[in-house]
């Protein structure tokens, strides 16, 4: 193995490990629930990304069997991390916080976890189904 390959893979491994421990330590250290949501969903995902890049470099440059499975895992993690963060934030809103604890939403209606969604035009039109039937007959 060339020395620069060794150093490159080691650098990615160390960066990934540091980001991982920072994310997990933030989960312990931070005070508020909403603050605690920040550390794992961002830092730990980035750490896993670094580790996956290191493993892709290792299998591509050292073992000469380049594959893109790792990119698949990275893509999946980077797609799902915001979704899980959003769901956990909603769970915190529903379980641990009250509407008085939150700032104003800045919209005509309140936060969607507590309040019903505002009526749209489609819901105001009564008898939408017969209209569809009429369209079907006309066609």
């Amino acid at each position: 193995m060339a020395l620069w390959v060794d150093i490159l893979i080691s650098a990615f491994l160390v960066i990934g490990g540091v980001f991982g421990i920072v994310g997990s330590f933030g989960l312990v250290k931070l005070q508020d629930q909403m603050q605690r949501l920040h550390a794992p969903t961002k830092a730990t995902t980035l750490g896993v990304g670094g580790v996956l890049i290191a493993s892709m470099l290792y299998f591509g440059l050292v073992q000469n069997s380049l594959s893109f499975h790792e990119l698949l895992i990275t893509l999946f993690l980077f797609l799902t991390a915001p979704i899980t963060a959003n769901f956990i934030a909603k769970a915190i809103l529903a379980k641990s916080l009250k509407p008085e604890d939150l700032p104003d939403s800045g919209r005509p209606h309140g936060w969607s976890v507590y309040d019903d969604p505002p009526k749209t035009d489609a819901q105001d039109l009564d008898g939408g189904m017969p209209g569809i039937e009429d369209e079907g007959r006309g066609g």
Partner: protein
Amino acid sequence: MIYMDYALMFAMACFGLGLLANLWRIARGPDNPDRILALDTMVINVIALLVLYGVQRGTEIYYEAAMLVAMVGFVSTVAYSRFILRGDIIE
């Protein structure tokens, strides 16, 4: 392989300590969303450990395991949050 063995050890130690921190948060967490968050982080750390173990062994088998753990972890986190939000998973 001069530095890579030490870097692998370092990264494995980091993610292992991260798993311990998550376990502490699961045991202590003041509320259920904290525990869901800690479980989600635990899944991510386990994915990283699996990939690191695959690099150490030199096999590519562990990617399949990591992919499966990632998918199951995502679905279970969403299901837990959904259960807390609505009291039911599939309505």
